[in-house]
């Protein structure tokens, strides 16, 4: 299931899928990633991290100190100036390479829709086969706002030529974490 998810997601437009056995390894990756992307306290170089089960496992104060410019309080202004937006997703859909977001809290949307790079954390165990299976798992009766995200923001409105990052991220990095569901949500 993971392999199909990875193949389909990586074909959906500037998307990378990485897999980690443990949350700790994923966190190490995020650390390196924020360094690599040169996150700092300057508009355009912020990082925002929307609330999610994984955050229970880290000391956000320490992280914020380590990365001035990283904020766990996602406001519209910070998100607007963010290079990286991090959030945790609920489900993956293998056949489509899509992920489902519980978007009821606006900060989930701000972090994933305004930044240049969306880093999406997904428990590997929560990947289902197809859209029909997903719809059995997540129902609008329980979720006020939910979004299926597939690849980066894109358009072909000019001469049918694909261009990325129209209004949202021009890059999507998906971190599939094997032990996350067990320890987290």
């Amino acid at each position, binding site marked *: 299931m993971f392999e199909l998810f990875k193949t389909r997601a990586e074909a959906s437009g500037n998307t990378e899928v990485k897999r980690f056995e443990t949350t700790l390894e994923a966190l190490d990756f995020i650390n390196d990633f924020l360094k690599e992307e040169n996150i700092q306290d300057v508009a355009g170089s912020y990082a925002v991290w929307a609330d999610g089960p994984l955050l229970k496992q880290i000391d956000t104060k320490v992280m914020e100190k380590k990365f001035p410019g990283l904020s766990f309080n996602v406001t519209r202004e910070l998100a607007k100036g963010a290079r990286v937006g991090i959030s945790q997703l609920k489900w993956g859909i293998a056949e489509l390479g899509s992920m489902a977001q519980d978007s009821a809290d*606006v900060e989930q949307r701000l972090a994933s829709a305004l930044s240049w790079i969306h880093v999406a954390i997904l428990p590997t165990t929560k990947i289902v086969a197809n859209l029909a299976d997903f719809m059995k798992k997540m129902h609008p009766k329980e979720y006020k706002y939910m979004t299926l995200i597939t690849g980066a923001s894109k358009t072909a409105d000019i001469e049918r030529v694909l261009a990325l990052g129209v209004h949202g991220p021009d890059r999507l990095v998906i971190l599939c974490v094997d032990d996350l569901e067990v320890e987290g949500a």
Partner: protein
Amino acid sequence: MKIDMPKNVDEALESTSLSGILDRWDYQGTRAKAFEGVDFQALRTRIAKVKGGVADNFDEVAETFKKNAEANGIKVFRASSAEEAKEYIANLCKEKEVKKIVKSKSMATEELHLNKHLEQFGIQSDETDLGEWICQLAHHTPSHMVMPAIHLNKEEISSLFSDEIQQPLDNDIDKLVKVAREQIREKFFEADMGISGANIAIAETGSIVICTNEGNARLVTSLPKIHVALVGLEKLVPNYEDAEPILTALPRNATAQLLTSYASFISAPTLNDDGTMKEVHVVLMDNNRTAMAEDPKFKEALQCIRCGGCLNVCPVFRLVSGHVFGDIYTGGIGTILTSWFTDLKSAEEIQAFCIGCDKCKEICPGNIDIPGLILEIRRRKAAKEGIPAVYKGALQVINNRKLFHSLLKVASVGQKPFAKDGFIRHLPFFLSNFTEHRSLPTVAPVAFRDLFKTIKQPKSDTKAAFFAGCALDFVFPKTGENIIKVLNKGGVEVTFPEDQSCCGIPHWGSGSFDMAAKSAAHNLKSLLEDDPQYVVVGCASCTTALKKEWVEVLQSEGMDDLIPQAKKVAERTYMFTELVNKLVEDKKLIPKEGVDTHKLTYHDSCHAKRHCGISQEPRSALSAAGYEIKDMKECDTCCGMGGAYTIKQSDVSMNMLKRKMENVQETGAEFVSAECPGCLIQLGGGLDKTDSNMKAMHPADLMIDKFQ
């Protein structure tokens, strides 16, 4: 820079950006890939069932939606007309002191001319979908439902953007997109209200579903404190699970994607980022949809999911785009929606662009007979206003084969009597004066009906009645003779019921169903006279009449007593190569041994492929006769003939031919074959214009000495 929208066919055909852009995209190839592993027929049957069921119960489903959405905290307003919808939104803006609006793509708001309406109250609406924004800057209407600015090239767009930001820009598409991001982003943050459409509205849960690739709908519904969704009644589905087939078909058919980048389900108001509660309004708009649902024919069009796939495969749309072929809603489906939602008069004009090739019908995920409904617009117009007297006169003449024959005898000598008063222009295509582009095929000195009497045939118990059609009877009698000779070798004796007349396709295509029915009635009697085992036809269009249209047209004209006979004819009718293929399979027709192989490309005429479902049989029959088939690109795309179409829309027709010829010649084949005299005239005429040695020939002429 001011860029004018093309107002007519000539301007559209001359525009360099229009024709190229859609053609460079291999829509059909990428679409097929996106549908791998999906049973498209089952999928569209499901969608048609769900949406058709809703159209039967608009009121009930709309009330369920209203009840459930309101229970979630969404305000729902049911607008019966465009006026009511506009008034509701305008009043809401006044009440909430809204000055700035950001919009994500919504065809329904285009239908209302909403931006213009709000502008008079000093409210600025900004489109945020890139294509829509480009159209807004250019003061153009969208030319395509999914790709609104497909009629503009990057140079034109760069110049529009440059004017907007007062800075010079180059033509790099990535950079242009970033300019748009920067410009529009501010607007999201400043707006007091966001207006969206919806792709689906789910009654069971009171949810709307919005799909975008750019992500603008997520911002439109998140940053401003008020969200208004304008939703046509036809977007309703009863249950959550009904969204699944639509979400499966929509992105695959629209842009050959498995899913759009973002698909949002909004079911209730959520908190804004300042802690206040968002206001969510859904305006459920009727605007003649209920009336449409009550029309037994047009109800079907409410199954449309607005994927725009029909535009991408339409050979006419691909040449002239939506400003000529369309109004607010564009292309074939657009013509139908226009006739109900915006402007019937304009739809009655636009319908003439449809050549009836049925290419769109094949890929429609709502299972809508788009060309059939366009023909229905034409039929109603003809019933209401009648058709021009001179045209009617011509159609009457071809229904009387004997009169036609005697007139043609005169024509073959001089053609003068026909030239008078433009009468000739309304005769079947092959007699019309299109010398401007091609040479007029001459009327044969001896018609098939006279030639037939001189043909000696071996006697057989297996008899086939030959339905010649006007073209083989009067222009290509030799092909008729060859058909008989090939069938004779397969042990079939061919009769020619002399009383036969025109098959009625020209009448049917012009919307004159009454005359088409008369023609069917007349022919049925004649064809069944000797109770033949087969009825054989050498023309794909006539084949369609015999196999399909006669039954339908008799039904539609209330001539039910003739339907059993029409069904009998339909069952016995074979297109020539279809019968040859059967005779070869039955080992009754044996190919000669040691014949030289020749390379051939086969053009699928629209009538054969999509109306009758015949595409493999001609290829097998021609292969058996020693031809190596080399398929051309888009072998089943219309050549542009379309009967009277080539006269009424001659420039479009010629441009369709030009594209066809490129594909034909690319194969390097020696022959191009098609089993339709109309296509052959078109293809032959096209070849005449080139240096090519390739010949356009009827299968019978290619098979004459290939069987034992």
